[in-house]
């Protein structure tokens, strides 16, 4: 599988979440994703970007294009150096929240993409990557 890095976007303020959505939209559109697939990956990226900012204390988004034979996909990876997640299973379950939200962000984002990967350790930050294949 070939990986091509496009760019990184810092997430330091709530305005950056808007920029994340715009960047993801731009690249998803450029690789010819359908409107529905675009909207799915944008919404998922928006959820995780907000978590990175609110719970992870800010971080970074890495955008990559994947090539696997004839298949192409967009991978968005969010990483932060925040407090990390102690119980990933609990965090992924619907309606669980520590911050007064709806508690659907993580689980919802997972359902919106083809591949979802989360790595987190208490005190060592969180890294979440999402892939949507075209």
């Amino acid at each position, binding site marked *: 599988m070939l990986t091509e890095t496009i760019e990184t976007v810092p997430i330091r303020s709530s305005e950056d979440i808007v920029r994340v959505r715009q960047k993801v939209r731009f690249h998803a559109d450029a690789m010819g994703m359908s409107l*529905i697939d675009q*909207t799915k990956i944008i919404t998922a990226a*928006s959820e995780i970007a907000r978590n990175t900012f609110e719970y992870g204390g800010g971080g970074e988004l890495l955008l990559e294009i994947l090539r696997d034979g004839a298949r192409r996909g967009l991978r968005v990876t969010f990483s932060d150096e925040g407090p990390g997640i102690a119980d990933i299973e609990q965090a992924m379950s619907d309606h669980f929240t520590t911050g007064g939200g709806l508690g659907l962000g993580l689980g919802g*984002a997972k359902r919106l993409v083809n591949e979802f990967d989360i790595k987190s350790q208490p005190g060592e930050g969180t890294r979440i990557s999402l892939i949507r294949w075209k």
Partner: protein
Amino acid sequence: MPANFDALASAIEQSEKDLLRRWIAALTAAGATRSGQTSDKDLKDACGRFLNELRNAIKNGAGEDISSEQWQNAREVLEEISTARALRGYSPVETALFVFSLKEPLFDLLRQTLAREERLADVLVASGGLLDRLGLFTTEVYQKSREEVIKRQQDELLELSTPVIQLWDKILALPLIGTLDSARTQTVMENLLQMIVDAEAEIAIIDITGVPAVDTLVAQHLIKTVAAARLMGADCIISGIRPQIAQTIVHLGLDLQVVSKATMADALSLALKKTGQKVERIAARG
């Protein structure tokens, strides 16, 4: 009055016209005048006024500190010029060049006037420092004016994007456009609740055709707005749910807890029914 500035003021006084001409030539050569944006007459006028105030300030004993009272008039001229340039879309460089372009002709003039005098170097250093401070001052003013423009645009956007429309008797419509961040959602909610009271509305249609993505935060804002409207006795209908938005809402597992319709027309038709009203086609006259 510092002696160095004294020499500067008398040099300007002696050949003001010549200096003005060469300054304008330098400004043009540096590309700091945009033809069409600032007329030659305005530019000449601005340069003339600044030179005049610069000379007056030094004559009145102004020192190096350009924030002092003696520099008041010169600062006002620069403020006016910088602000006008910021509003007309000049770049910060083009704005700062207004003062910096004066350096070369002024230094030439000083070299001629003080040709064999020992104090020439001191006068040049003092004059250079003074022009640097004045130039930086224009950049500062420029920056402030741009910030004001941005602030004003943000305020305009906040108001523009949250209109509440009386659609029919007892029916309100709230078309949402763009990103729903918390500041805007707050305005939206306040406007809607106030309009519900003012218009004695029973139904509020919230249209999200112009919202590019509905994530859990947007959904949460919508749910709160609907709940608050309900407490005031008005029911909400959400309209403008496009196919891709409907799919993402389902995948996210969101329950909007409200009646929704694909188009504003469908929502209006439902609202009319709920409020016991009817719109009929007039029979062809004939």
